[in-house]
């Protein structure tokens, strides 16, 4: 039924139920003795200062953006990969053109310094 996704749905529910059940059992048999020192965030023994919501470097955002482009590219290649066997040469050439356009994109972002972890002065 539903071509196998029915099973996936029930597995999701069972996975969540398994976790919930175990946490419930754990809540029955574990101690609960909160005191303020235990509840402070761990900073290798020092007193913590400020909240935990620090600002982090925008390079993470840039990596996520570049990932998005390549992931969508990968998703587009999936149907081609399934039908390639037994199809003609034009199928291959179309995809090679697509891949090369995206490779140009990779080279561009490489040259622009988007893939560097440490920011270099821009070269282009």
């Amino acid at each position, binding site marked *: 039924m539903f071509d*196998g*996704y*029915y*099973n*996936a749905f*029930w*597995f*999701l529910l*069972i*996975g*969540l139920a*398994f*976790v*919930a059940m*175990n*946490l419930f059992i*754990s*809540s029955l*048999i*574990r*101690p*609960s003795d*909160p005191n303020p020192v*235990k*509840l*402070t*965030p*761990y*900073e*290798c023994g020092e007193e*913590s200062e400020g909240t*935990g*919501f*620090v600002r*982090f470097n925008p390079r*993470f955002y840039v*990596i996520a953006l*570049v*990932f998005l482009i390549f*992931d969508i590219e*990968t998703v587009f*290649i*999936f149907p081609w*990969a*399934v*039908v*390639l*066997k*037994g*199809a003609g*040469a034009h*199928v*291959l050439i179309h995809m*090679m053109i697509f*891949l090369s356009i*995206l490779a140009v994109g*990779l080279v561009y972002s*490489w040259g622009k310094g988007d*893939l560097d*972890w440490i920011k270099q002065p821009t070269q282009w």
Partner: protein
Amino acid sequence: MVQWLAENVFQYIAFMILPFLESWTWMPWYTIALLHVAGVILGVISVLAMFLIWLERKVSAHIQDRLGPMRVGGWHGWAQSIADGIKLLLKEDIIPAMADRPVFIVAPFIAFAVAFMSFIVLPFSQHIIVADLNIGVLYVYGLSTITVIAIIIAGWASNNKWSLLGAVRSAAQLVSYEIPVGLSILAGIVMAGSLSTVEISMQQSGGVWNWFIWRCGPFSVIAAILLYIGALAETNRTPFDLAEAESELVSGYHTEYSGFRFSLFFLAEYTNMFIASALVVILFLGGFTGLVPISFVPDVLAGPFWFLLKTLLLVFVMMWIRWTLPRLRVDQLMTTCWKYLIPIALVNLGIIGLWTSISG
């Protein structure tokens, strides 16, 4: 009188009350069967994770010329994982004071549920599979991306600067390595012509010479190795384990988790290792087909045997690599992915596409 009772009251019971006493009859038979299978697989995962944790400790110990757990349970400490599991159940559940409670609680649910859901497409034999989705491999690939969400929200909700930094670094790493993994998976799919895991494994049946890893010469070997390296990075294993490096960010995104919540992340990690190795086995190493076609052993026994043997061997190699290689720095990690693995994977995919469409 008795006859009246027998005819009416018992009939009343049979028709009106029994269905509620047998309380599952409102569920169709296939759901009940599925629940049983899910229960079995839960058991398998738990035992597998416990076994892999024990194995990891033994492997790491022997590589470091020591012995590892030896006492719990008698023979080489086999019950150590069970003891550790029970200990973690008994630990106090400390949620930090300013932590985002609902998000903090949800994170291990997502991490584990996703790992558990990937099990439905693993073929233990041609017919021993929970759901032979016709997009099986894409399903597993997609699910592995959801783990990133669990990690980010775990780090964010912990109200701990280092957890947050560990989480975003880990997310950046996981997300970057999705691409060489995807491109290598595509190389395998190109050789197979189908996304169904059973179909891919059946195409490699008949012996070790039919496996996809040597089908396109050295290029498919490269694809398999790239997939394996990507799998190491996807499951946060050394040399890519900066996110949970014990010597750096304490424990990264799961620093603030205690008790069973922590063990859920652990379970999810070892399950993901198994799934990633299983993916490599299905796509390149023949899935459940054997080294040589043995006809006198029934398929039901031979299939799971070969599948588990190959997958566990690859998991063992993951552990071996962990205790042999030093950790990569985060910028080396990113450089490896974007500047080496992705160009190689792209070119490799092109060559394998060319080879497959020529040799048909």
